[in-house]
């Protein structure tokens, strides 16, 4: 689990003296080559396109992307939605991960499998599932009408709420897995120690388990946030045109209007915005854990 965020180390002991010997660097080569060809080069090219105007270098694409108007609204909407989805994943997933991690190891396997089964089904199929559930004549509406709770069908599909629910459902297993793997590294005898030293179960959780698992929660948040930023199929199918996200907008620019310059600029903005938010969260987490005397303080 990326230590950098989970447990800010002193830097002193950890980084120094434990540098990987040069002879083992070749182990990184396959990943580095792959990364170069499928990430660095394409992103570089996209960056170039984004500053290409009618006549040479120009910032016009960025002006269009960031200036007042629909694009900026959609960009902020996407950031906001992803933020909310990531928070919801943590809030819903944390107790589930806690439950899983507190089972005896042999019972965990089956439960983990259950959590992971949704991942076996493609996002497309799962999203269609939500159409069946939330549609005008879907499961929820027929049930509500059946028990007489409402007179006519409620508009649930093609709302922001539908996008929220569908995205949280898709990303939740990822969030649970990340938090679970951090929680299993926490030594349970620490909680016993906190009890005998005078902490109630709740205070033991707040003072010991929560801080030790916070790194995992922050990692899970960042991962789900970044994944949510790039969501494409789900908002398109259950959100409708009203709930366009930036990924849909980019796709439109690239495949329909063929404005590759604007599409590239939007893509770059998304990448930078994603980095900025994740970086800010990571810094904030370090600052908070550092100042409270838990973790990075000298």
């Amino acid at each position, binding site marked *: 689990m990326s230590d950098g965020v989970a447990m800010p180390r002193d830097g002193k002991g950890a980084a120094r003296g434990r540098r990987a010997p040069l002879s083992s660097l070749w182990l990184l080569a396959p990943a580095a080559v792959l990364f170069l060809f499928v990430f660095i080069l394409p992103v570089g090219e996209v960056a170039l396109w984004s500053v290409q105007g009618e006549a040479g270098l120009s910032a016009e694409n960025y002006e269009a992307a960031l200036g007042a108007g629909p694009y900026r609204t959609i960009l902020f909407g996407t950031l906001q939605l992803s933020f909310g989805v990531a928070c919801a994943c943590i809030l819903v997933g944390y107790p589930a991960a806690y439950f899983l991690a507190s089972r005896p190891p042999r019972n965990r396997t089956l439960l983990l499998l259950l959590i992971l089964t949704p991942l076996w089904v493609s996002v497309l199929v799962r999203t269609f599932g939500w159409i069946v559930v939330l549609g005008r004549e879907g499961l929820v509406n027929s049930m509500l009408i059946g028990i007489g709770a409402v007179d006519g069908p409620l508009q649930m599909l093609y709302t922001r709420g539908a996008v929220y629910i569908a995205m949280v459902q898709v990303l939740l297993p990822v969030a649970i897995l990340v938090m679970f793997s951090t929680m299993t590294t926490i030594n349970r005898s*620490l909680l016993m*120690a*906190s*009890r*005998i030293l*005078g902490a109630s179960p709740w205070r033991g959780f707040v*003072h010991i388990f929560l801080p*030790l698992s916070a790194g995992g929660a922050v990692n899970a948040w960042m991962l789900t946030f970044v994944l949510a930023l790039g969501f494409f199929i789900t908002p398109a199918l259950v959100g409708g045109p009203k709930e366009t996200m930036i990924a849909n907008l980019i796709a439109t620019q690239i495949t329909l209007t063929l404005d590759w310059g604007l599409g590239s600029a939007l893509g770059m903005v998304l990448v930078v915005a994603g980095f900025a938010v994740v970086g800010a969260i990571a810094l904030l987490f370090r600052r908070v854990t550092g100042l409270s*005397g*838990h973790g990075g303080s000298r």
Partner: protein
Amino acid sequence: MVPTMVDVNKPSSGTLNREAFSKVKATGATIEFQSVRKAYGSVTALHDFSLTIHPGEFLTILGSSGSGKTTALNALAGFSGADSGDILIDGKSVIDEPPERRNLGMVFQNYSLFPHMTVFDNIAFPLRMRRAPRREINERVERVLEIVRLGALAKRMPRDLSGGQQQRVAFARAIVFEPPVLLMDEPLGALDLKLREALQFEIKEIQHQLGCTVVYVTHDQREALAMSSRIVVLRDGRIEQVGTPSEMYDAPKSRFVADFIGQTNLLAADLSTAGSVSISELGAVYRDADSQARQGAWYASVRPEKLQRRPAEGADIAVGVTVQEAVFLGDVIEYSARTAHGALIHFREQRRDRDRIPERGETISLVLRPSDVVLVPDLAKTGR
């Protein structure tokens, strides 16, 4: 034998600050286990465990893994309930109290220091949980840091400390709120021998100064002998024997205890004739006026140091042996030898300059006092 008072190899950081003690004082509590029983599924970990531990006593629960010693400690700490029976601390039943309401200090085998807190915060934890005022917290933490001489490390994180230092932090954290009872679960198990021996003395000293009741769990009989005021030997969830270290060593009541505590020679004994003891493997038959005719599996336990080469007053049993091996240990020499009846026995003698060390294959004569032979039943075979 046991390292004496001045241990030159003792790390200098290992000395305790005696003056700092005078300000920390706890009053030991009485602990009563009343017929405590605990089963895990079909396995009974503890059968009808009854024991009274006196105030200020250093009581060691000694046993191998699976003997129930940890179950007994966990029942006292409140981590696992009991199926039946009661536990009283100073006359008050605590069996239904959660661990945090029992006011016990505890040192864990793996120290269980909180990895996200500094040394200071770790030690302050029990005080904060008791909502002590900030000034008192600072005073008390500084005091115990002084006792374990770790004041300079207050701001360090546990992972930056050595094993011995972590152990002292765990200890400081357990005593900072001056608990009447201190529980220790193999606290020295993870340390190397030298450090372990040094810390044995420190722990004993701290306990003397504090006056708290200590319940110490270990599988190491040497540790138990060195530290305890009383020892309880547990076997398969039952108390095998309770007594002071010297009682356990000199007067074991069963073959198991004789074998478990210290070194000994266990030789089958025939007690079927009243007033007579026959140890065929030594070729020895002697009169024992108190001895009644007893059936079952009985053994003679003979400590290695009781067998001697030079004649002594009352040493009426003579045994001819052939030396197999002599092991030079500095102050003592340990021998293994075979009797004429084929039994392998061990004996040990203090080294004296004039003495010639018998060589392999040499036949020598050993003497033994009948009163140094302890007759013990094999409870597993004869029943309880």
